[in-house]
């Protein structure tokens, strides 16, 4: 056997040992990290501010393995019926072996976006699909990604929105209608609630604005009085409910 062959044989042997040891030790380190209570995500908490709905979540990673975790990317996505409601991600430089890193994830979506693309959520309680993802390099060479699917409960801010008891008082030329809804969301509904009454052809009969402040887990029940032109009044039509200029509901009404 020549010298070249002998050297190559030894190089190959050493490299095979590396190939075998690296994944085994990385898998062991990985299993140490993913012991209970070493990686934890907290479910997003919803709040509202200035027309925006904010979802805040926090997480921590306690690297009890013996390899550093580098280029750690944590992302969160919330979907409603396979339609994205929002997503965000955070990149951490790394979690060195034996250290614990905590961070938070926040993302917001406009109430107007909710009203235009996910109007169902405004009046219906449901579950939102939540996807949590964590990807990282382990030992700076191998990569891994963990994706967890979960659901979070959604409480509708205008749950069970109903328009009832429509009545026209000819003496005052006022059309009155009762508006009722329950705020099942974790935030308060504070703003202008507008009720528009239209005839069957879509012509505006009248409208009424009311400043509301409905706290979480309370209900709203009020009678809206609309000054209307008696010549325009019809026995039935369509009603639109707006909150801060965003249409949240529409229903037919009859006297």
């Amino acid at each position: 056997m020549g010298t070249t062959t002998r050297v190559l044989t030894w190089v190959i042997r050493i490299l095979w040992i590396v190939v075998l040891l690296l994944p085994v030790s990385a898998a062991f380190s990985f299993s140490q990290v993913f012991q209970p209570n070493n990686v934890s995500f907290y479910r997003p908490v919803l709040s509202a501010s200035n027309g925006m709905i904010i979802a805040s979540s926090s997480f921590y990673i306690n690297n009890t393995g013996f390899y550093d975790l580098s280029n750690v990317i944590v992302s969160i996505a919330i979907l409603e019926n396979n339609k994205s409601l929002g997503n965000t991600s955070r990149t951490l430089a790394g979690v060195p072996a034996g250290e614990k890193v905590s961070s938070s994830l926040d993302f917001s979506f406009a109430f107007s976006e909710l009203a235009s693309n996910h109007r169902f959520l405004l009046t219906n309680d449901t579950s939102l699909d939540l996807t949590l993802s964590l990807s990282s390099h382990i030992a700076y060479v191998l990569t891994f990604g963990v994706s967890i699917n979960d659901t979070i409960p959604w409480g509708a801010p205008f749950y069970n929105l109903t328009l009832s008891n429509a009545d026209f008082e000819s003496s005052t030329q006022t059309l009155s209608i009762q508006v009722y809804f329950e705020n099942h969301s974790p935030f308060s509904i504070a703003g202008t609630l507008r009720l528009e009454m239209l005839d069957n052809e879509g012509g505006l009969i009248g409208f009424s604005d009311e400043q509301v402040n409905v706290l979480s887990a309370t209900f709203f029940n009020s009678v809206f009085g609309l000054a209307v032109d008696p010549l325009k009044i019809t026995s039935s039509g369509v009603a639109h409910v707006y909150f801060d200029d965003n249409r949240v509901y529409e229903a037919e009404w009859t006297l």
Partner: protein
Amino acid sequence: MISEEGTRKSEKAGSRFLKATAKSIVVGIILWVLWLFLVRFFSDYLEYLQYFTIFAWTTVFFTFGEKLTEGTIYRYGIAIARDMFVIVFFIFATDSGTITVDLANISLTVGLLPLLALIVFISLLSIAKDVTGAIDFASENSRRTRS
């Protein structure tokens, strides 16, 4: 004289066959013990156990072939075939370097591309070594024949 040489040759071949069988059995037992260990962790992932079974049988086959053809030029041919099998096998078994496992509502993805690249590199190095070995063997043989 001729029959004596023939007897020696068949004795040598018989001994080579026995040595090859013994080494294959030893390698087979090691792989079987490893399989018993792996089956505890991968019992729900039959696909990966199947890959291991294919790898184990092929390893036993190449071990037998290499030992049987030891001292001949064919040994290098078998070694090159084994290295090529290793390249193709690992590319196929690791789905080109990315393995995804679904466990209930958790999906785990492992990227093994650098490791796969290293395996391919080692196998290519091994092929180079076997080619060098074959050239060495052929030149040594011709020198011996000339002298």
